[in-house]
């Protein structure tokens, strides 16, 4: 550690004003603050700073994603061998390694493309490099299907970082979740690679699927009237995007996020409440012909990306509502909208992505009303006393 610190102190002057590499100041700063807590302080005014800065916060989220990631790797391998019909002949580690090989390139592409754009734009504007992409870069692979072509991941990441984030001014200024923007871009641009029966299986096109193999996700099957067992979907050995299948792994992540206080329990709980309420409502009043409406409400929570979206996407502090009361409404509407889209629009079996992006758009409006209500309440108090 000391050697590293000394090395950084040695080269630092070169990157400061007037140094040889002054142009690359922000790149250097990014690496330095990544390794060590910065020792720079504000020169004016009083600033109370927590020991947990943005980088540390982001790392907690990445840690919380690890269970979902590891399980996603295993499940990718598992689904691959289920497709080829070799499941009985392979060991646990073979399955995991296969999935690892499938998922790792997606992670690498997402990080390389995203960070390259982050560094370039910070460099161009002379800003510090922001660490927001550490999380987005991990979220993007987890919401991709296993068989997505790598160049598409690259294009989508570039689109999301440039149009979702940099044009608004970088981390903290974006009002859509960049990872979801990457997914929604691919979903509409290349629907054949993002949904359907084959996208979820690594190397589907080059390897022969076993006879009688059906690849539909639980949501697609539910659309056709066949409900996957709650426990199977809860543990997560089902086809789906890499990180979204296992509610168990996601709940471990949720526990980490809530225990460290990084994510808001208000948003998370209200997404589930919204989903349960709307799912239950459809169970009561939905038409008997609509298989999705008849899907028991508890199954909605474990199918598709509901859990993943509720825990990792809806709680994104930048794009969610920021007023405490607003978080309840924001979360509730996400859960409710997701179920509404699932049930009423057979074209979109998965509603979570669209619901979250929609509510991201409305989050500032929700905040506005809560802030305004607060102002009005206080104004009233003032006039009464005067």
């Amino acid at each position, binding site marked *: 550690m000391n050697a590293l610190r000394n090395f950084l102190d040695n080269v630092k002057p070169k990157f400061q004003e007037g140094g040889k590499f002054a142009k690359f100041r922000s790149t250097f700063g990014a690496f330095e603050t990544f390794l060590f807590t910065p020792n720079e302080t504000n020169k004016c005014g009083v600033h109370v700073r927590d020991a947990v800065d943005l980088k540390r916060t982001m790392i907690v989220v990445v840690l919380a994603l690890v269970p979902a990631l590891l399980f996603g790797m295993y499940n990718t391998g598992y689904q691959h061998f289920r497709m080829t019909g070799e499941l009985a002949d392979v060991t646990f580690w073979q399955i995991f390694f296969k999935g690892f090989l499938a998922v790792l390139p997606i992670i690498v592409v997402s990080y390389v493309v995203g960070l390259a754009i982050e560094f370039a734009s910070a460099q161009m504007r002379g800003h510090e490099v922001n660490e927001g992409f550490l999380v987005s870069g991990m979220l993007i692979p987890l919401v991709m299907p296993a068989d997505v*072509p790598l*160049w*598409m991941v690259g294009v989508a990441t570039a689109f999301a970082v440039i*149009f979702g984030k940099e*044009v608004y001014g970088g981390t903290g200024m974006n009002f859509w979740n960049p990872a979801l923007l990457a997914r929604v*871009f691919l979903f*509409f*641009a*290349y*629907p*054949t*690679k993002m949904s359907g029966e084959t996208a979820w299986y690594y190397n589907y096109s080059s390897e022969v699927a076993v006879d009688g193999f059906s690849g539909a996700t639980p949501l697609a099957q539910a659309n056709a009237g066949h409900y996957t067992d709650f426990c199977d979907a809860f543990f997560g050995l089902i086809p789906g995007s890499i990180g979204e299948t296992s509610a168990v792994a996601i709940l471990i992540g949720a526990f980490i996020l809530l225990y460290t206080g990084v994510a808001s329990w208000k948003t998370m709980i209200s997404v589930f409440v919204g989903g349960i309420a709307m799912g239950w409502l459809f169970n009561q009043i939905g038409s008997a012909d609509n298989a999705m409406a008849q899907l028991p409400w508890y199954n909605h929570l474990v199918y598709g990306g509901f859990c993943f979206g509720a825990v990792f996407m809806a709680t994104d502090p930048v794009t969610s509502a920021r007023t405490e009361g607003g978080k309840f409404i924001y979360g509730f509407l996400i859960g409710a909208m997701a179920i509404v889209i699932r049930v009423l629009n057979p074209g979109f079996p998965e509603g979570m992505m669209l619901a979250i992006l929609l509510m991201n758009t409305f989050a500032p409006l929700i905040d506005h009303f809560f802030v305004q209500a607060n102002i009005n309440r206080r104004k009233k108090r003032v006039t009464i006393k005067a």
Partner: protein
Amino acid sequence: MSSKKNKEALLTPLGLNNPVTVQVLGICSALAVTAKLMPAIVMGISVTIITALSNVVISCLRKTIPLRIRIIVQLVVVAALVTIVSEVLKAFAYDISVQLSVYVGLIITNCILMGRLEAFAMQNEPWPSFLDGIGNGLGYAKILIIVAFFRELFGSGTLFGVNILNYDCVANAGYVNNGLMLMPPMALIIVACIIWWQRAHNKDLQQK
């Protein structure tokens, strides 16, 4: 005939005073007709003709039009011209008029037209008004063509309907046409990129 002012009326709408990218007018039709190049070009030409002619007519009448009902008079003139263009298209380019569908008729409501009539033709002689109409129409057409070029190339893999990217070897390399390009949001994003590029290169256009 070709004074400095007239040249400006003709040329600035192509660049520094472009109706779409600088004044941000006429966006609606720029989204609607740019999925393919051919309709975009026809639309650009139609708007150019209508803007130029309506500018001339209104400019000739400008001293006799009562100010209070000028919008109605302008609309009547534009509507007549739009109807003529629409009929001509139906007669000589039926396929394209089908593709453009209601958007030819909707040229009546194109903000560029009303904007030029109000801002220019009502105050200027017919000849400069004509040049202004041509310039603005071409400025609009220019943006439409750029947007349609990217949307058709990456969305359908063709240009003017001619196959560019849809070959087996390209498909085997993993390339897939981008479906989002065919949807209106992508036209907005491409227009936004053109505006971005233009403002980045012109200090005058940057907002303080």
